[in-house]
């Protein structure tokens, strides 16, 4: 029983972080109908920006509330910039070309970034894993069942941060002018352009938002797992992508549900079998979902118009 409860807690906390990354995939897919393969690697870059700034703060003496917020802000801003660059120079020129070209470009960027970061030239970190500084002191927040089940403070914090960011996104998409424009572009970008919506700008801002969310998720991952490495983006990014597909790609609440589900399934498989199976779980789950319900849990079947 206590095992089970602990797994639920761990699964939920992993799932909410996946959700942040999955939201980026789903938003970009919503406006562009493109799977942004490089999204996970943007997350990785954000984590490294967070790492670099955390080292700076550490040298100047410890981490306070303000410095933690600054770390988040810096890496989110850096990733937003990277997201803009990728959209502007790699995806925008290909927008009217066949979808395959954009897909290949996305894979190429992902590959170039994740392996580029494995070189140890200049500011590039090289292939060895680094330990993310302990920006939040790890301590139990709540213990249950005579101390057999622990809810850690960083789990609570990452849960709160993830929920906060998601709530902000929900507000932005459904309650603001920009959100309305975004939904219009997602529905039909040509008509949206005819109605005076600046589609290029909407798409660029969507990219930046998704990338910023990914950076936030990257820092939360780093706080959770401590170890960061250049290939973490591809790994976690693919899992988050699987989560987005499970929920029905393009569907915002679906991405969150899919991510939490994936976090729980992964945690249970690892908890009750062996951790070496961890990387196969997400893909096995994906193939199962695509077999049984290809449109995802919350997706709608749309007839293709010619």
């Amino acid at each position, binding site marked *: 029983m206590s095992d089970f409860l602990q797994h639920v807690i761990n699964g939920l906390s992993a799932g909410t972080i996946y959700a942040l990354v999955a939201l980026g995939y789903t938003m970009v897919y919503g406006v562009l109908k*493109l*799977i942004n393969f490089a999204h996970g690697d943007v997350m990785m870059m954000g984590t490294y920006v967070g790492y670099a700034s955390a080292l700076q703060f550490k040298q100047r003496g410890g981490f306070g509330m303000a410095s933690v917020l600054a770390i988040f802000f810096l890496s989110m801003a850096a990733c937003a910039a990277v997201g803009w660059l990728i959209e502007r120079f*790699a995806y925008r*020129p*290909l927008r009217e*070309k066949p*979808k*395959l*070209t*954009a*897909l*290949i*470009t996305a*894979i*190429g*960027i*992902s*590959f*170039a*970034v994740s*392996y*580029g970061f*494995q*070189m140890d030239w200049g500011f590039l970190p090289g292939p060895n894993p680094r330990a993310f500084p302990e920006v939040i002191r790890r301590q139990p927040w709540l213990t249950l069942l005579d101390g057999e089940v622990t809810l850690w403070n960083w789990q609570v914090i990452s849960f709160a941060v993830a929920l906060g960011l998601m709530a902000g996104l929900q507000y932005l998409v459904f309650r603001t002018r920009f959100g309305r424009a975004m939904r219009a572009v997602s529905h039909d970008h040509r008509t949206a352009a005819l109605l005076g919506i600046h589609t290029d700008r909407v798409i660029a801002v969507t990219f930046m938002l998704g990338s910023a969310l990914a950076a936030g998720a990257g820092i939360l991952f780093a706080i959770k797992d401590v170890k960061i490495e250049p290939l973490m983006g*591809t790994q976690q990014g*693919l899992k988050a*992508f*699987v989560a987005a*597909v499970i929920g029905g790609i393009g569907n915002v609440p679906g991405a969150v549900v899919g991510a939490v589900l994936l976090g729980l399934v992964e945690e249970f498989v690892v908890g009750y079998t*062996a951790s*070496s*199976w961890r*990387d*196969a779980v*997400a*893909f*096995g789950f*994906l*193939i199962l979902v*695509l*077999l049984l319900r*290809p449109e995802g849990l919350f997706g709608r079947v749309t007839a*293709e118009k*010619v």
Partner: protein
Amino acid sequence: MVPPGLRGVLPVVLACLALAAGQRLFGGQEFFVYVASLVGVNVVLAVSLNVVNGMTGQFSIGHAGFMAVGAYAAGRLSLPLGDVAVSGLPVAASDQLLFAVSLLAGGVAAAACGFVVGLPSLRLKGDYLAIVTLGFGEIVRVIIQNTPALGGALGLSGIPQRGSLFAVWLCAFLAVLVARRIAESSHGRSLTAIREDEVAAEAMGVNTTAYKVRAFVVSAFFAGVAGGLFAHFVPIINPGSFTFVKSMEVVVMVVAGGLGSTTGSILAAVVLTLLPEALRSGFNRFAGEGAGAVVDQVRMPVYGLLLVVLMLARPQGLFGTRELWDRRKGQGARP
């Protein structure tokens, strides 16, 4: 010229003769044989991936997974057969016979996997297929890592070294021949139709799922054979040889050569295998021992950038969909 009855057989016979001569001339030079075998395996991989990614317009990025299945199936089969001889045959001949059997087994195992993966996922659109094939490659790797009978993460060693220049390049030749025959048959026309417009192809009565699955199975078969060949000339196979990186290498070859052009795939496979080797030994010779390691570090990021630049500047790659054996300029394969 050639009597019609001989047309199918003649190229194979000629290739066999040429390869036997090559084997006789260069078979003794170890490093040359190793590099040439590597090139041959990559040619098989690129040509077979081109059947799916180029001719059919689907996008598979899990080719290394099929290669791994073939390598492990063939290697595992060959392992206990190392000292077995078929009675009534000279030792060399029986070795080659057993080698051919295990290659075939590797190919069939990979093809079976191709069928299992292809059947459900080829009903899906491009991006989903990409991710499912990637997932398949990862699952294969994780399964091998967790199976003690296959050597786990350490790998499988002691596979009899039966690979030869002749065997590798005969397989490469056959792969090219099959790819060419497919492209020029009505089968290939259907694949091209699917690539150009899937909905229109379906409306014209092409059973898109069946054709896609068949293309997938053929492609997986040759990837499996390539894996089997690989397993028989390297000292050890381990899951690390068949990662996403290997899949990407093959994808880069196909894209750079031109999606849909077998000639392009061959050329790109040859160049992209030889270039890093040449650069590495060049750096080692002229910039001091150890300088060649830079090549390995830079290779992957460069491949990634190459994909991006190709897509932005020349999405049709080197050859587009043209072939060396096309009759007239500007014309596709013969009708």
